[in-house]
Each structure stands twice: as structure tokens, then as C-alpha cells.
């Protein structure tokens, strides 16, 4: 069996503060096989974004952060890479999409210029003309009908939905093996969000890109992910295939989270605890859906 695209084992993270050590991740494990779409779902502050940032190698260098555990990308231990090697991975083998497309694009450069930058990381020395040709093809892939016009625009001249598509096109431009999407489209309207999710799913499927999909929105996760991990206050509490978890959530926290989502079929608002000892119950793993090399 080839190495999974991403393997995280017993990852712990703490931040030093004036009040002492703030423990944020209490030893989480997860993996993503080649081409697999995996969601990490939980409430705000549960540790989703820091997990993504550790994978991207962005937290290890913070003076206040203390990281331990294993993070392997395509079989390579990230901790054994130099800062330069980690930097070289970002935007090439692994790339990311953030929540707010408009603010993650640079407002003072045209889309064409930013696309050229992105392509240079994967293909050093690529000419402007060649970059433009590839950018047009990439924008075409995300169903942008006038790629030439979009390339000559600044981000503020485009709608939020259009910027989101541009972000997706850029993130996939260098054919990464792992895409990290941190709450993509949360800032967009539902109709636009639905379209961009479909688009992202189709494209990652076509290119066999593995995805770490981060979201607090269970509905969005249900529609996007093959498999999911539920995180509560820095601990994974349940993991398994998406359909099984939605049909039959077994951990008290997963149950509460699911129950709390209002239904378009009605039924009112249920009485649920927003905090409970039961939410700290041990991890629930579906049979056959444990971590590689581990029981469960």
C-alpha cells in the first residue's frame, strides 16, 4: 500500500501565554488517502484551522507554539524537512483555499499577475505568455466564461463568487496532490456556495486531488466529503464514512451537533446542551475506518 497523502498521528499543540500553556490540540490523528475527500468538522475554536496551518508548516515556526506528534505528507515527515523544503511544497504539492476569497487575493495586482506568480512556483521560469495560456485553461475549467476579461481585472472588480472560482483555479493550477480548503465559501451566498462546492468536487475528482475540507457546517460536509472526522475542543470524537455518521451518529457530541442543525422540513428547535461532560466521551471509530497501522 502506498503512503497516504496525509498522515497525522498524535498531534499536540499548545500556545504559550502569560497565563501559562494553552493546550489547543490534545493528540489528534487523521489520514487522507490519495484522491480522498476528508472533512474535519467542528465548532469555532475547536482546532480546525490550526491543524491546517500545521500541515502547511505555518505554525511550527511560531515562537509561542509548541507542536509535537507526526505529520507526514506523501510519506515524508514534515518535521525532518528544512524550512526551505516546506516552503517549496506550499502552492505546488499542497495548496489551500480560505474562507474569504476577496481578501486572500492581493487587491493591487491583476488576476493575470497573480496567476503568473502561482504558476512560477510550480514551473520556475514559465513565461508570461505561457502562464497566460495556462491561466485561461484553468479559468475555463472553473466555468469562467470570459477568462481573458477576468485575467485583466483586479479582485475588487469581480463578484465574491467569481473570486472564489479564481481561487479554486489558482489552488489547482500546479496540480497539487493535497488541497486544504478552510471553510471555503462561508462568506458567500448559499446559491453561489452550492455552485462552487459542486465545482470543487468535480475538479478534485477529475484530477485525483486529495482534499482536507474544513467546515463548521454539517450540511456542506455531507455534500462534499467521503469521510469525516468530528473535532471537539482539540480532540477527535468520532470518525467514519460520511453517510454512516449522518445516518447513525454515535458520539454524544456528534449527535448533539447534528440534532442542533435546523431542518428545512421543520420540526422546531430541539433542546440541546451547548456544553456537556458527555461531549468528552472517548473517540468513536467505525469498524474498518480507523487509522492506518492502528487497531480499530
Amino acid at each position, binding site marked *: 500500500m502506498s503512503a497516504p497523502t496525509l498522515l497525522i498521528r498524535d498531534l499536540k499543540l499548545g500556545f504559550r501565554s502569560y497565563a501559562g500553556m494553552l493546550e489547543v490540540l490534545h493528540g489528534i490523528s487523521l489520514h487522507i488517502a490519495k484522491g480522498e475527500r476528508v472533512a474535519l468538522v467542528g*465548532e*469555532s475554536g475547536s482546532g480546525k484551522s490550526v491543524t491546517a496551518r500545521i500541515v502547511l508548516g505555518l505554525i511550527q515556526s511560531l515562537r509561542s507554539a509548541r507542536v509535537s506528534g507526526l505529520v507526514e505528507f506523501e510519506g515524508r515527515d514534515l518535521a525532518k524537512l528544512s524550512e526551505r523544503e516546506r516552503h517549496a511544497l506550499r502552492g505546488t504539492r499542497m495548496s489551500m483555499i480560505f474562507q474569504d476569497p476577496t481578501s486572500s487575493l492581493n487587491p493591487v495586482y491583476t488576476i493575470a499577475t497573480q496567476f503568473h506568480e502561482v504558476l512560477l512556483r510550480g514551473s520556475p521560469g514559465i513565461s508570461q505568455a505561457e502562464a497566460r495560456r495556462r491561466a485561461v485553461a484553468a479559468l475555463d475549467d472553473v466555468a469562467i466564461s470570459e477568462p481573458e476579461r477576468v485575467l485583466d481585472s483586479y479582485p475588487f472588480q469581480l463578484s465574491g463568487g467569481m473570486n472564489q472560482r479564481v481561487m479554486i483555479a489558482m489552488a489547482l493550477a500546479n496540480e497539487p496532490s493535497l488541497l486544504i480548503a478552510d471553510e471555503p465559501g462561508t462568506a458567500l*451566498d*448559499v*446559491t453561489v*456556495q*452550492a455552485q462552487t462546492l459542486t465545482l470543487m468536487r468535480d475538479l478534485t475528482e477529475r484530477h485525483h486531488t486529495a482534499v482536507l475540507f474544513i467546515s*463548521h*457546517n*454539517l*450540511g*456542506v460536509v*455531507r*455534500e462534499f466529503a467521503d469521510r469525516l472526522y468530528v473535532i471537539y475542543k482539540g480532540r477527535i470524537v468520532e470518525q467514519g464514512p460520511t453517510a454512516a455518521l*449522518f445516518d447513525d451518529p454515535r458520539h454524544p457530541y456528534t449527535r*448533539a*451537533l*447534528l440534532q*442542533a*442543525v*435546523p*431542518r*428545512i*422540513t*421543520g*420540526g*422546531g*428547535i*430541539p*433542546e*440541546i*446542551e*451547548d456544553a456537556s461532560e458527555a461531549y468528552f466521551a472517548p473517540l468513536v471509530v467505525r469498524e474498518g475506518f480507523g487509522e492506518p497501522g492502528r487497531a480499530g
Partner: protein
Amino acid sequence: MREPSRVTRPLLSLRSVSKTFTTAGRMVRAVDDVSFDVAKGECLAIVGESGSGKSTVAHMILGIYPQSAGEILLDGSLLPARRALIHRRAIQLVQQNPLSSLNPKRSIGASLRLALDVHGIGERSARWDRVGQLLEEVGLPADFRSRAPSTLSGGQRQRVAIARALACQSELVVLDEPTSALDVLVQARVLKLLNELRAQRGLTYVFITHDLSVVRNVATRVAVFEKGRLVELSPTETVFTNPKHPYTRRLIGAVPVVTAQEAELRGRLMEKSNASA
């Protein structure tokens, strides 16, 4: 009955209300010839995508700025462009981000007390106790009076904002995306509180949100806005089972759902939408 109109008179009426903004020489018609009534005790939801004019409607109802055309009536009387204290007391606002409306330098209790002082509600000497009661009515301990807004969680702050709306004993509360910034477990508790308060106190809500699954579970009727226009206004049940406007169907069709029954309902509405397209 000698005065039949009195029984059925809506608490709030908008008659052909429009709002035009001019920015950088460009005219934006944020709200375009909108009319609707809000009955006493109901929860009228206003839904639509961002920029559809929802908040502008809220601001006009509250008198934060005047409408460009049309009339707004409260309990049958015309609301003036410049609202008097009594009007400001009669209609309360709960916003998405309560921090923006709570003074960070003032304790929670002082902010609530200010509302009582401004409107001269209750005996002066009893007001501090009243503040404690108000907090308890929204499910917070009375001793939160002395806390600073920054020490509260998002859900707790939203409860304080609701307590302040209750302080003025107004019948009409405009809620503009009141739970959109909250986590789903916290949202459920705040929505439950809002539902209970409306039932117990006979409050009337104008409930603005982009989240249709919330709407389904709190609203009695739904007004759908598209680009400043009211395109559909129906009882909640009708909107979710037999929406008339294609835009409404598209909105419901895009809601991310968590159960098979919901997916089925959504699929059914989309089919109709495609059939009529």
C-alpha cells in the same frame, strides 16, 4: 363589533416603501416599492441573498434613516422620518454582532440600565434589580450585571442584546441575522429562547436572515427579497412545500441539508423549478 378594523389591524405596515442610495454619483435602489403587513404576535421572516435589501428594510423600520418613498405605519399611525423617544422605545433591534451595539467600556448591567433610564422605565431605585431579572429572563445569571462585554461568549452577548430589547417592553423586535455568527449548538439555544419569549410575551418579530433552515423553524410567514424587491410572501409551510416564485425555489434548492428527508424535499422543489424553466 363597532371597530372591526381594530381587531385585524397589523402592528406594522410598509406601504410602497423604497430606498435609493447615491454613492459616487451612482444610484442604488436598495429597496424597491415594497409593501407588507406584520400582524401582532407573528414572526415574519425576511430572507434573500446578500445585498437584497434586508438590512435596509430593518433600518427604515427602526428609523435609522428615512425611506425615499412610501409610508411606514406602527399600530395604524404613520411613523415620522424623525422618530421621537416613544417610537424608539416601541421598536427594538437585535443585530448580528451585539458587540457593535454594546459599549465595551460599560458593564453589561450599566448598558441595560441605560435603556431603562433613557425611557424612564420603572422606579429609579428598582432598576438595578430589574436589570438582574432581565438577565435571568434570557437565561443568564443576575451577577453578569458587573461583567464587561468582552468577557462574554458570542451566545451570551446575544442574550444580553435580547435582554435589552425586552427592557423597553416593546412589542416589536427587529432581529437582523441574530444567530448568523453563532455556532450551531449555541444558535439552537438562542433560537429556542426567542421562540419562547415570543410565545410567552406575545412579541412580534421581524426576523431577518439568509438561513432558510432557521426560517422554517421560527417564522409564521416568509417574505422573500430579490434585488430589493419583494417577490413572494407566504405562510412558512407554503414557502417550503409549494413556493410560487422560481427564486424562492432556487434559494431553498441551495440550502445544505443534513437528512435524507430534507434532500428529498429539496429535490422535489428543484424538479418543479426545472419543469417550469
